[in-house]
C-alpha cells in the first residue's frame, strides 16, 4: 500500500519561533526524511510555502477563475494531489485548470519550499521574473 501523509500545523506557532528553533525543526525534518529513505519508506515529499502564497483555481461553465487564498469550501474534502513543474504561477494556473475535478471542487496551488539546514529562510535567487524577459 502507498500512503500520503499530510502535514498540518497552525502557522502562527511557526511565526512565533526563534530563528534557532526554526532551523532546528528544519534539521529534524531533514533527518526524518533521511531515516525514512534508509528504511525504504520515503517516496517523495516537500514542505510548502505559507498559506499566504496559495491560489485557488476553479472551472465553472467552462470558464476558469483563479482567486487569492486557500478557499476550499468546508464541505470539500482533500481528494488527491498533483506535483507540477511550472514556469511561474500563470503556468501553474493553466495546468491546474486542466485537472478534471477543477470543474467540481477547487484546486489549491501552493509553491514548494526547500528545507535547508542553514536557517536561510529567504532564498534571494528564486525571484520569479529575475532572469526572464532579458
Amino acid at each position: 500500500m502507498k500512503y500520503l501523509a499530510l502535514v498540518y500545523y497552525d502557522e502562527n506557532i511557526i511565526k512565533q519561533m526563534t530563528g534557532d528553533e526554526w532551523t532546528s525543526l528544519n534539521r529534524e525534518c531533514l533527518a526524518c526524511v533521511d531515516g525514512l529513505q534508509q528504511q525504504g519508506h520515503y517516496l517523495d515529499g516537500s514542505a510548502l510555502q505559507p498559506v499566504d502564497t496559495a491560489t485557488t483555481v476553479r472551472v465553472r461553465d467552462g470558464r476558469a477563475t483563479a482567486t487569492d487564498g486557500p478557499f476550499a469550501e468546508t464541505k470539500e474534502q482533500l481528494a488527491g494531489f498533483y506535483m507540477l513543474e511550472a514556469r511561474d504561477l500563470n503556468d501553474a494556473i493553466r495546468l491546474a485548470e486542466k485537472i478534471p475535478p477543477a470543474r467540481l471542487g477547487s484546486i489549491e496551488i501552493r509553491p514548494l519550499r526547500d528545507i535547508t539546514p542553514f536557517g536561510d529562510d529567504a532564498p534571494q535567487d528564486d525571484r520569479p521574473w529575475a532572469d526572464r524577459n532579458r
Partner: protein
Amino acid sequence: MRKEIEAIYARDSRKVLATLIRLLGDFEQAEEALHDAFTCALAQWPEEGIPANPSAWLVSTGRFRAIDQIRRRVKFEDITRQLDQPTSTPHAVADSDDEMLEDDQLRLIFTCCHPGLAPEAQIAMTLREVCGLTTEEIARAFLTTPATLAQRIVRAKNKIRDAGIPYEVPGPSQMSVRLDEVLRVVYLVFNEGYSATSGEQVSRYQLADEAIRLGRLLLALLPAPEVKGLLALMLLQNARRSARQTPGGNLVPLDQQERSLWDRATIQEGAALVTDALATRRFGPYTLQAAIAAVHDEAPTAEATDWPQIVGLYDVLMQQSPTPVVALNRAVAVAMRDGPQAGLTLIDELLAGKALDAYHLAHAARADLLRRLGRIEEARIAYQRALALAGQEPERRFLQHRIDEMGAGVA
C-alpha cells in the same frame, strides 16, 4: 531646475519604476533604486544639465545604484550570478526605446491586477505602484488605516515573489480574461471615488481622477475597444459630478440635475470615444453602458431623453451580460418609455427571482413606480424596505425624504 526635476518625477517616475521592477526582479529594490536615481538627478542635473532621455538615464542610474547596494550586501559571486547576465548592461536599457518602457508599464498593471492577489490588494497595488499614490492617500480614500493598507501591500508583494506571479503581459489566449480583471479594478477605483460618499470628498474625487488617468494610460498602451468604452463610461459619468450632489451632500437624481453644471467638454470627449468603440463592433458591456450614459448626457432636458434608444442599448447589454442589475436598469428604462405599469411588471418578475431581494435600489425603483401609479401605501412599504437595506448616508437621506414627502401628501 528643481521644479523641472519634480515635473519629470510626476511624469516619468512610474514608467521608470515599472522598468526597474523588471530589471531588478523585486518591487522593494526597484522602489529604493527609483528613490536613489532621483537623488542622483537632484545632485547632478543642475551641474550637467538634464539628459536627452531622462527616463533612460534614471533607469540606468537606479539600476547601477541597486547593483551597488546589493554588492555591498551579498558576496560578489552571488551578484554576478544574479545580475550580470549578458544582455543586462545599462546600455541595453539606454538603447531600449520608449516602446520597451511602455511594455513595462503594462507588465506592472497586469501584475498589480493579477487574479492571484486578493481584490482589495489589487486595488491597493494599482494605486500605489501604477498611480504612485502614498499609502496614506489610499488609506484615507478607503477609510482604513495606513498601517492596514501598508500591510496589505507588503502581503501582496510577498505573494508576487513567493508564489511566482510573473512580470508579464498575458499572451493572446489569456488576454481577454486578464484585461477584464484590469478593467474591473479601474472601474472599482472609479466607483469608489464617484459613488461612495461616506469618505472625505476630496480624496474620493482624487480616486475618480486617478481611475480616469489610469483609463487614459491603459488606452495609450492597449487601444482595445473595451478600454475605450470604460474610459468613455468614466468620463461621461464624471462629467455630471458637480450636479449630482447638493452642497449639503444630498443626492440629486439624474432627472432633477441642473444640466448646465455638466461638463460639456468631457461629455464630448466621452461621446467621441463611445462612437469609436461602437464602430469596432467588438465592444462589450463597458462600451454599452457608456453609450447609455452618452444618451443621458446628450439630452438637453430630462424630458427629451431618448428612452427608446436607451431600452434598445439595454437589450443588447442584456444579451452580453444578463445580470439582475442590468435587468433592473432596463426595467426602469422601459417604465420611462412605456409608463410605470410596464416597468413595475418587469421589476416584480425580477424580485420574484430573489437575486435582487437584498438590493436596495431594486426596492427603491419599485417604490418610485408605485408612487407614480398613486399606490402610496405600497410605495411607502417599498421605500422603507429600501431604506432598511441602504448603506450610504446620502442615499438613506434621499429615501427618507421620499417617505416624508408622501406622508405629507396623504395627510
